[in-house]
């Protein structure tokens, strides 16, 4: 009798510890008979079931914890348990639990425990709450979808941009062709007008009255200016139509030639010109000469009373060469710095400084064709700096193509 009591006490202690251990684990454990009637369960199961222990025991698990696989309820009925007995796979399955409470995701492993005595056989169900993991997965999926959607939108925008940029290029080209055709076709009648007015001027000056002399003089002047304008416009239009393939250009040598050509003008202006080392680049030699010349002529033309100083330099920045021409001339209001690159844009009247306002527009077009950028820095009385960039390496394919 005492032995029996000792043994029972020992077993009780063991069972008590086991029960406590089962109580502290996070996974829910339920033991049911083959019909699904709950015989015991641990504390974690109480929490998932949302009911006190006492209300769970002896009930069928299907009533306590209806499991759903997506939207289909998995009936834990006799058939269900029979299928488990036939196929005692331990692969956990995921279920959705919705019982008037926020949705919980459960990973359920079910295993049948055979026993010699039918009464002791049963089914062990281990349930892990994987709601947090599921939510995280859902959030990641959501993020992935958002990203995919954004990528899609970006792609569409990009395609639109490509399309409109193509449209723009086309209409630019049309416009250019028009300008070219117009200026070209205007030249001939204008030449006729100009020559006859000049003839008139030659033959009839001082033979008519004073007014007539004056009118003829104005007409001569106007026709000459119009001829210059038309010539410049034609020049500008031809920049893209009459191009030479890009080649290796020694800018140092080219600049020397340009300065030689401008020798008289430079000497007259008394300019002091310094020139740093200039690189060899891939470019259209004639156009580069034109670019340098236009910028130099401007620097000389828009000089102040100060002795004129012009500094020419080049600097390598990443994959670009940056050319700068800096003067100490009259400068200009920074608000005009963008405008001056437009066709026929001038900040002065023809009487103050001669010119048609095409020089910088030509520069801009040349630089654009070479895939670079041109801009100016200036302030009134502070001199001006004109900078432009040209890619240091042009691939042969790109080099031979003419950009609009």
């Amino acid at each position, binding site marked *: 009798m005492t032995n029996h*009591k000792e043994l*029972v*006490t020992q*077993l*009780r*202690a*063991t*069972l*008590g*510890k*086991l*029960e*406590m251990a089962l*109580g502290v684990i996070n996974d829910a454990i339920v*033991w049911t*008979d083959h019909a699904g*009637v709950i*015989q*015991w*369960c641990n504390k974690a199961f109480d929490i998932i079931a949302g009911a006190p*222990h*006492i209300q769970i*025991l*002896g009930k069928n698990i299907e009533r306590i914890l209806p499991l759903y696989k997506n939207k289909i309820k998995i009936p834990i009925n006799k058939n269900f348990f029979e299928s488990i007995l036939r196929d005692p796979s331990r692969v956990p399955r995921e279920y959705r639990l919705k019982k008037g409470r926020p949705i919980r995701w459960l990973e359920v492993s079910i295993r049948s425990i055979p026993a010699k005595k039918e*009464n002791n056989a049963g089914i062990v169900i281990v349930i892990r709450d994987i709601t947090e993991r599921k939510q995280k997965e859902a959030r990641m999926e959501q993020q992935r979808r958002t990203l995919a959607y954004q990528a899609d939108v970006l792609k569409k925008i990009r395609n639109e941009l490509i399309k409109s940029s193509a449209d723009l290029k086309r209409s630019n080209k049309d416009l250019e062709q028009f300008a070219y055709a117009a200026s070209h076709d205007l030249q001939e009648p204008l030449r006729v007008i100009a020559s006859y007015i000049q003839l008139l001027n030659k033959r009839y000056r001082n033979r008519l009255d004073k007014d007539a002399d004056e009118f003829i003089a104005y007409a001569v002047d106007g026709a000459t200016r119009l001829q210059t304008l038309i010539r410049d416009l034609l020049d500008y239009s031809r920049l893209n139509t009459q191009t030479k393939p890009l080649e290796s250009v020694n800018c140092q040598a080219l600049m020397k030639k340009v300065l030689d050509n401008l020798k008289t003008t430079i000497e007259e202006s008394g300019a002091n010109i310094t020139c740093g080392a200039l690189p060899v680049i891939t470019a259209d030699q004639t156009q580069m000469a034109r670019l340098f010349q236009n910028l130099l002529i401007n620097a000389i033309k828009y000089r102040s009373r100060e002795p004129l100083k012009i500094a020419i330099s080049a600097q390598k920045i990443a994959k670009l060469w940056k050319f700068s021409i800096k003067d100490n001339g009259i400068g200009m209001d920074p608000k005009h710095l963008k405008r001056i690159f437009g066709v026929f844009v001038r900040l002065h009247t023809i009487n103050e400084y001669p010119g048609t306002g095409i020089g910088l527009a030509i520069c801009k077009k040349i630089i654009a064709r070479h895939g670079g950028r041109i801009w100016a820095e200036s302030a009134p009385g502070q001199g001006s700096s004109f900078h432009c960039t040209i890619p240091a390496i042009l691939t042969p394919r790109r080099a031979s193509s003419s950009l609009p």
Partner: protein
Amino acid sequence: MKTIAEIKNEKKLPAVVVDTLGTITFANSVFVKVFGWKIHDIIGKPLTTIIPKNLHDAHQLGFSRFLTTGTPTLLNEPLKLKALLKDGTVIDAEHFIVAEKINNEWTFAATIKPIRNRIMSD
């Protein structure tokens, strides 16, 4: 709060007393009448005699846990639980269980008040 002595004196409701091993040491006359046992048959039997089979495991685990920790979870309040009659009938009954340490050993006593509807056992 009822005491074990009070429960032993219970005249209207079935009442039992159980020792620390889970052996029935006392049953009153109402219990005998309701559950269908003869008094000398029930004394000395394990408490599981009057608990439906599918709740035995849960009972043993809970009972052992209380003995190990001394922390009650089901004591001193009315509880609706199943009970097993001698003829195999399972009934719903309102249990009121108390525990006392007597001679340094836990002793338990309960009143078991049947609730109307009887359920056939499986």
